[in-house]
């Protein structure tokens, strides 16, 4: 969920809860206030009425007169003694609009001209239902307006405020340590974002530095290793030419030569990888992929014959990729090597080129129920190998992937009907 949506939702929820609480409080306060007012009016009326009747003893007050709002009921003295003044809510039928209306009634016990009376004064009350309705409509409208304008302004402001942040995110998402390109983060007027920007830039710079020195280290180490390797190799070659070599010595020498060769190849491979990463290759060459394929295939004649693999090539007239010729050759070579190496007896290998694509499909060992499963996401990792073959390092596909990436191509692997398919998109 987006931060903006999340905060907006929470704000709206709080708004609703607050609105509910305030509405209830508002209603309670309002109705208490109204009640107080009505009661006050009733009390004042009583006081005024009694004062008037005190001054004008002739005024007719007994009996129920529909012109006034009060009624005096004569009562016994005993009742008068016990009587207490009280305010009550009553409902009175109103024939005009055919409904029961709410009224407030004051019941007082008074003594006028020596006689005891129960005085009832009635005043219309504000109706609760109407009040709630009015409150709901006005408050609801108010809330809706408020919420809407709040939400919109919040969105607009947030969008503006968070814009540099999202820009930064987007740039960081596309940032690649090996591309040797600093992400350009736009400055923000907000201190926190500015601080974040600076911190990220610091981090990026430090990382690039570490990455750079790491790369440099690998390259330097590989370079430095080449001279001693040359010496070992040349000395070994000189040694095997010596006539008095015994069989035992020859065997020992063979082991050393083999290991030196492996070391040499590993060194060469690591050097190649670091060179690709350092982008030391010209990438603007026009590379004829079909020629590379047919030339490379010559090297696999023996393997083809040894395993009786049927190789089918279906190529377009011309497939020209833009990239580096040498790297393309290594890419094709590594894919073919892989396809032959993991093939089975009487297997097959289909090579196909079409619309800027190279597809290499080969049969392979059947999946074992137990044992290691080919982990697709690790397939292009360095030093990942499924076979226990000690003669491979699992660097071939890593290099192929790196080459594709450097040239701006994509290399994919998929499995269809027991066929292992590698597809290079030279797009």
């Amino acid at each position, binding site marked *: 969920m987006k931060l903006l949506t999340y905060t907006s939702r929470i704000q709206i929820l709080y708004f609703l809860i607050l609105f509910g609480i305030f509405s209830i409080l508002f209603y309670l306060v309002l109705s208490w206030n109204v009640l107080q007012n009505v009661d006050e009016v009733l009390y004042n009326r009583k006081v005024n009425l009694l004062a008037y009747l005190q001054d004008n003893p002739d005024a007719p007050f007994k009996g129920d007169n529909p012109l006034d709002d009060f009624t005096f009921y004569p009562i016994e003295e005993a009742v008068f003694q016990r009587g207490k003044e009280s305010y009550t809510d009553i409902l009175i039928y109103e024939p005009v609009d055919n409904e029961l209306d709410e009224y407030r009634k004051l019941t007082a016990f008074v003594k006028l001209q020596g006689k005891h009376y129960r005085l009832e004064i009635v005043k219309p009350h504000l109706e609760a239902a109407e009040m709630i309705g009015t409150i709901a409509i006005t408050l609801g409208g108010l809330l809706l307006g408020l919420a809407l304008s709040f939400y919109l302004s919040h969105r607009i402001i947030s969008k503006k405020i968070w814009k540099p942040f999202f820009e930064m995110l987007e740039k960081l998402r596309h940032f690649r340590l090996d591309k040797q390109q600093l992400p350009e983060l736009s400055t923000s007027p907000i201190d926190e974002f500015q601080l974040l920007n600076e911190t990220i830039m610091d981090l990026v710079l430090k990382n690039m530095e570490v990455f750079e020195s790491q790369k440099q280290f690998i390259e330097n180490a590989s370079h430095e290793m080449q001279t001693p*390797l040359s010496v070992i190799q040349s000395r070994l070659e000189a040694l095997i*030419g010596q006539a008095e070599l015994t069989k035992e010595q020859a065997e020992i020498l063979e082991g050393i030569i083999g290991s030196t060769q492996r070391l040499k190849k590993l060194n060469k491979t690591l050097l190649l990888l670091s060179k690709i990463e350092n982008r030391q290759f010209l990438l603007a060459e026009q590379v004829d992929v079909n020629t590379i394929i047919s030339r490379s295939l010559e090297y696999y004649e023996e393997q083809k014959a040894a395993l009786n693999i049927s190789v089918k090539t279906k190529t377009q007239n011309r497939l020209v990729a833009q990239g580096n010729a040498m790297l393309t050759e290594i890419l094709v070579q590594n894919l073919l090597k892989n396809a032959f190496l993991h093939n089975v007896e009487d297997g097959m290998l289909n090579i196909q080129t079409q619309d800027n694509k190279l597809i290499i499909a080969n049969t392979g060992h059947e999946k074992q129920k137990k044992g290691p499963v080919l982990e697709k996401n690790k397939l292009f990792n360095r030093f990942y190998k499924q076979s226990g073959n000690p003669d491979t390092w699992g660097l071939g596909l890593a290099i192929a992937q790196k080459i594709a990436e450097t040239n701006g191509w994509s290399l994919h692997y998929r499995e269809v009907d027991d066929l292992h398919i590698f597809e290079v998109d030279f797009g």
Partner: protein
Amino acid sequence: MKLLIIEDEPQLLKSLEDFVSEEGFVFDSATRFQSAMERISLYEYDYIILDINLPDGSGFDLLETLFKKGKTDGVIILSARNSLDDKLKGLGLGADDYLTKPFYFSELNARIKAIIRRKQFKTNKLVRYANLVIEPDQYLVGIDDLENNISFTKKEYAILTHLINNHKRVISKVSLAEYIWGDYVDEAQSFDFLFSQIRNLKRKLKEAGAQVEIDNIYGVGYQIKTL
């Protein structure tokens, strides 16, 4: 023919010296940039084996001096830096070849022989070994003359010429396999293939009546010998 070896690593220099004397070259050697500069200003060399990284200077500066004199013909660069820029720069300055360390002497030898052939006149281009005659431009091999040439596959031809180029030494099967298959094929597999290639090669040579023999030195390497 005189050769100059410029290499600062003593062990490698020793190997190179052993190698060129075995091949019958007259040679001088220099381990530093300054002494190398002196030598090229004083003497004339037919071939120069040049290491690019020297402790007191760059081999490229030497190459440039040679280039100004028009004497870069016959220079083989040895470098620990297999970068394309270096290669292009070296070859651009007129160097004949570029080898990356670590290299096999058999490979260096093949490169030197190729340069020698290129320098020689066309009539002299045929390579003779025992009763074998080889025409490198057309990949032809015959007995005594090229009339009845023996048909070899590309790889058999490559193995045979590589063995003949290096007939003075034993070529390890590792270097031979690398020469033929490069990085394309895994080593362990390539040994089997090499074995069968050489078996076919031997059979064809024998059938044609070539007076050569390919010795297998306890499975470590091969050497061609005249009978």
